[in-house]
């Protein structure tokens, strides 16, 4: 009964600032398309954005659009349209909802920003398969549909130790993109600009890391659900001064919260890890539900995935290759388990929550016995809930909530 009372989510004051810079970002993209300059590149969310920015492209991220389709719960309208042209309901629902929205000529951007009529059409599509193969299929569809080149980097998968061989290969692929990108951008590659952008990305990522690490404090000042919203600038504006300035503001606010012992869940009793994708259409609902259970979800693989410690302007290609290869999703099970173990220690966590996202196998790490192994190793319980990032047909609200509530009851009885 307690969860029926909607508990208030504490508003983050920096949200207004974020809305402003996100609006500026989308209007700038829209203007560029309408005026034909600068050129627009689409990039996967952990793709070589810094290279594109240094060449003068404005960069748009379809995954960010996918998340918007999920968060606005519009995805279910569009997924069937992609299914109908042969893209299975079992593949990435970012892909299917985004492609479906394009087929229907609709976008949440035009609802949010007056004057924007559609997504910013690309001059080039640039992917990195470090996340999954689906991004390549996704961009290939647009490439054929819009007659725009799709270029990409193919990353190794399930890597334990990263070797020089891996990095040399990835760095070579990044360099290999330059001639074609120069041609499309109409600008020559400039090493100093590249170093500068990479430096800004590094600053952004370090501030984002500090933001996330404020949750080492008890109570934790920001929930995973808010983090997923506030990481948008780290995804789409990294490599710019704007993102750096934003995270300075957000960090200051969270440090003030810490000083005042103001938690995202004020009566925080338990602290959990979220492994896997967010359930975008249920962010608010789940945030409120966890508050009602006095349980804070405060650390996650997902939000940590935009921490790129290795960026180094003095060695831009190799460091970029390392940064985009050492991320969690690219690594083997042993690395992932060690990583989560570190998070449990760092944040003082009581339990692990795995989201088995039906259409996102690469971000569903429960499927090869990891929760069971970690329970034994760490002595804390793990729970798997079934759902999806965007396709809410794969999510049973009642079943998920009963599981979560029972999990918290189990923690209470310890």
């Amino acid at each position: 009964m307690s969860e029926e009372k909607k508990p208030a989510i504490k508003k983050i004051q920096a949200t207004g600032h974020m809305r402003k810079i996100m609006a500026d970002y989308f209007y700038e993209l829209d203007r560029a398309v309408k005026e034909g300059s600068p050129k627009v590149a689409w990039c996967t969310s952990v793709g070589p954005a810094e290279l594109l920015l240094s060449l003068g492209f404005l960069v748009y991220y379809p995954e960010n659009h996918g998340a918007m389709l999920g968060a606005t719960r519009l995805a279910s309208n569009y997924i069937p349209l992609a299914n109908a042209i042969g893209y299975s309901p079992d593949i990435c629902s970012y892909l299917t909802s985004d492609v479906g929205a394009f087929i229907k000529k609709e976008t949440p951007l035009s609802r949010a920003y007056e004057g924007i009529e559609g997504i910013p059409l690309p001059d080039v599509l640039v992917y990195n398969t470090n996340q999954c193969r689906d991004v390549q299929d996704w961009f290939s569809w647009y490439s054929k549909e819009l007659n725009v080149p799709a270029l990409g980097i193919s990353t190794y998968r399930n890597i334990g130790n990263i070797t020089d061989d891996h990095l040399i290969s990835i760095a070579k692929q990044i360099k290999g993109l330059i001639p074609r990108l120069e041609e499309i951008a109409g600008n020559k590659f400039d090493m100093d600009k590249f170093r500068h952008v990479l430096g800004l990305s590094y600053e952004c990522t370090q501030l984002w890391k500090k933001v996330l690490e404020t949750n080492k404090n008890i109570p934790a000042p920001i929930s995973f659900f808010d983090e997923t919203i506030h990481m948008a600038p780290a995804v789409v504006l990294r490599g710019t001064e704007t993102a750096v300035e934003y995270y300075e503001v957000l960090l200051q606010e969270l440090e003030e919260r810490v000083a005042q012992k103001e938690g995202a869940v004020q009566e925080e009793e338990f602290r959990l890890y979220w492994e896997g994708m967010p359930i975008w259409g249920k962010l608010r609902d789940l945030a409120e539900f966890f508050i009602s259970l006095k349980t804070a979800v405060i650390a996650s693989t997902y939000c940590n995935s935009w921490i790129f410690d290795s960026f180094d302007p003095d060695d831009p290609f190799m460091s970029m290759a390392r940064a985009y290869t050492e991320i969690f999703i690219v690594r083997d099970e042993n690395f992932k388990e060690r990583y989560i173990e570190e998070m449990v220690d760092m944040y003082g966590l009581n339990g692990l929550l795995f989201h088995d996202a039906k259409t996102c196998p690469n971000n569903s790490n429960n499927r090869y016995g990891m929760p069971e192994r970690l329970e034994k190793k760490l002595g804390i319980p793990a729970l798997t809930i079934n759902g999806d990032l965007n396709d809410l047909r794969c999510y049973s609200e009642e079943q998920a909530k009963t599981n979560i509530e029972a999990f918290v009851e189990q923690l209470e009885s310890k």
Partner: protein
Amino acid sequence: MYYFIGIDVGASTTKAIVLDNKSKIIGHSVIHSGADFEAAADKAYKKAFKDVERESQNKERVISTGYGRRNVPFADLTKTEISCHAKGSYHYYRRAHTLIDIGGQDSKIIKIDNSGKRTGFKMNRKCAAGTGAFLEEIANRLKIEIEKLNGLAEKATKNVTIGSYCTVFTATEILTKIRQNVREEDIIKGIFDSVIKRALEMDPLEGNIVMSGGVVAYNPYFVKMCEQKLGKEIFVPPFPQLTGALGAALFAFETKGGKHA
């Protein structure tokens, strides 16, 4: 003095149990939940008291559980069915064990330690296969009364494999079996076997095993088949379908400082 009442509003049936001040069961009921959970809870509550000589001065403490636990306006507290089943199961089986509950909507595997604490749980995925609803659907397709499944399965002479995960695909598979002139009894046993397999997929099921839920209550042959599969004896509590309701009533008993006799 108090009456301690547990109400388990499940997807298929609503169960109620009344305990006296010494945590002894003095009334119980099982009714169909229907579409109105609130009405079902009220009806189950009244029915459980039907044969109880009520002491007018006695107060009541009510805990609701199950999918409709939030639809019981007269409940003092809610608890999930996972916690309540663990509680109810340990009441009769006071050793470390794994409880398999096969309910109408879901199947649960719950691990309980020697002291009665829950150490882990799993629920079936979002699918009817492996649940009471699956048996109901198949019985309906075959136009067999659900109460007759146990007797039919007992008379099976052959082992028939039903391989599909999905209720809809299973129905198609059964049509094929019918066309192949497979006996109805053998098909029903095959369906029982399919439900058991879904439970076995959820957990290695080591150590002591207890089973509860409506499927277990009405189909003793189902339990026998499980015992054969696992190669060990399975404990079934006296009111298998009321395990969750009993757990809720026991929680109610404890919240008033009650200690078990």
